[in-house]
């Protein structure tokens, strides 16, 4: 590994991610043997659209996990933003609805961050609390009944395509590159790695640890809101149970993508590949009509195996 480390740029990145890329390539090869439909453009576009919601959540989650934190509330934040979108799109205007929905995500995320950074509550607990709280809010707001969305323009966000690429996938990929740029090229991003690697050292080096922690949870909340936008526009409905359990899928994508739960190590590209791995697995099992109960076995086994295969980096602790 050493000989490459001078090699900045793409090659270095590829090399660092070799394990997870290998896993992806392996899966693609196996998948294309298992189904001749797998490697068709429509199916690959399908996969890309299918992974967009969890993929977006996982991007935000990557920031949090890089700081050695965790955000269990993303599924509930998604649900909250979904019902807000649904409640406002048809009543007011699409831009206002979007602003409110994303704003709610940032708000709950900020509360998480304040609790973690300033009240010293462990991230697992703080976000477990908001998981329950935000879900409760969605239920109260809707009275438990799903709110249909009729606006056609809004529907287009989730279901339209540009140049044959589904818009949700474009949102995911643009977000990916923005996140990668922030993490690689800004002092903030770099400090996130430092803070995750050794919080005390980062603090002594002058990193505004608390503020940055608030920021990462706010970012995670923002992306949960963005995922909610994709969700509600794709499905034209604001259901208060939206996103239940997605936090575990998002965390799995991040970790399968090679980011360490102990912080300081990983990348959003890895997370994207992790998302694809999980998405392709689900796709190929569906294409082959594997018994849904048996699919659960595969899913469980895949997460563990993927982390094991490329795992050296996480065993470091």
């Amino acid at each position: 590994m050493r000989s490459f480390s001078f090699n900045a740029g793409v090659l270095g990145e590829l090399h660092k991610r070799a394990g997870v890329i290998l896993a992806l390539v392996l899966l693609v090869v196996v998948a294309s043997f298992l189904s001749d439909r797998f490697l068709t453009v429509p199916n690959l576009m399908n996969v890309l659209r299918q992974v967009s919601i969890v993929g977006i959540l996982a991007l935000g989650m990557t920031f949090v996990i890089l700081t050695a934190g965790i955000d269990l509330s993303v599924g509930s934040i998604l649900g909250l933003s979904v019902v807000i979108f649904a409640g406002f799109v048809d009543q007011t205007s699409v831009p206002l609805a979007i602003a409110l929905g994303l704003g709610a995500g940032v708000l709950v995320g900020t509360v998480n961050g304040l609790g973690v950074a300033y009240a010293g509550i462990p991230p697992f607990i703080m976000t477990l609390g908001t998981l329950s709280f935000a879900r409760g809010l969605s239920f109260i707001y809707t009275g438990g009944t799903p709110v249909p969305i009729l606006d056609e323009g809004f529907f287009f966000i989730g279901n339209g395509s540009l140049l044959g690429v589904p818009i949700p996938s474009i949102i995911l990929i643009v977000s990916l590159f923005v996140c990668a740029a922030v993490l690689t090229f800004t002092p903030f991003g770099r400090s996130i790695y430092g803070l995750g690697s050794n919080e005390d050292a980062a603090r002594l080096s002058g990193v505004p640890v608390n503020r940055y922690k608030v920021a990462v949870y706010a970012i995670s909340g923002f992306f949960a809101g963005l995922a909610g936008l994709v969700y509600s526009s794709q499905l034209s409905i604001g259901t208060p149970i939206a996103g239940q359990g997605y936090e575990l899928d998002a965390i799995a994508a991040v970790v399968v993508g090679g980011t360490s739960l102990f912080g300081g190590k990983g990348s959003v590209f890895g997370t994207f590949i992790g998302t694809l791995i999980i998405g392709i697995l689900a796709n190929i099992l569906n294409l082959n009509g594997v018994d849904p109960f048996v699919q659960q076995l595969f899913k469980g086994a895949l997460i563990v195996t993927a982390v094991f295969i490329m795992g050296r980096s996480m065993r470091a602790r």
Partner: protein
Amino acid sequence: GQERLPVSGKTCEELTAFYETLPFTDRLPLDAGPVEIDGEVRDITIGFSQTAFNHPWRVSMLESLQAEACRHENVSLIVLDGNVDVAKQNNDIRDLIARGVDAVVMSPVESAALVPAARAVMAEGLPLIVLDRDVPTEKTLFIGQSNVTMGEQVARRMVEDLEGSGKIVVITGLQGSSPAVDRDRGMRNVLADYPEIEVLAVGDGQWIREPAVPIMEDFLTAYPEIDAVFSHAEESSWGAQLAISRAGRCEDGILHYTFDGSNAGFEAVANGTFQADGNYTPFIADVGLRAALYQLMGMEIPEAADYDLPGKTLVLPDSPVVTPENAAEWAGLGWGDFAPTPNPCR
């Protein structure tokens, strides 16, 4: 064959025997044997996207589907589990399209949310049969019953038994899920006319037994007088009954009104544990599959009728709420082959 089918784990042999007991085999009749399309017999693959397999009612629906499929050796099924997640179900249906199925049968998690998926199926020119919960968009056929009217029927029976006044507690199905919302709405529609009936408290029974027990225990502690439990699921009613017996309140004569329509539930009505059981049959998927095959064979679906949503519907006779009066005639005609839980008060 002896091969065990996905999810239900039953063999075609078992399912063929079971087919004889299904209630609606006379609708859209179709002979056993290979299905011919344009005079040729080729493999036909039908995709089935189920809400989830987290409840035996949903498994029973699948069994009725599998039983029909077993009658035609060139018809095979791909069965997917929506996991009570509209986004996942949406993805599943697109995977079915990518897989190149000949028709899609789906039982949506949430009606409005499956519109894009339904449109995608129709855009491919595939027959789309929607079961149980409708989607407000174009489709080949919808088959289902209304949870709202069923909620009304059960509530009306309760009001009758209580003679228009009394104190009740409600244990809902999973909060936010559409049958829970609809059954509750049906009940509220009826109770609006009976101000003397007081809803003391509402708890979330999540369709299952375990959460209903502590909820009911606490309700029993809080309210010395409870006349009836209105529960959205038989399972939760069993939980409530357990709580009543543990609290030593068997003598209170608390009445149970519930839903699901399982054979065990009917037996419990017959022996007096439940006063009414909303007869919500899952055995509609065989009809759905036949409708899809009709469509593939280029046949008209005889009884399909227009209704207030896009597409057509097949109206099935309303199954009456099962009460002590008709419990005997319904014995064995419900779903599920498991025994009822013994009433702990006996």
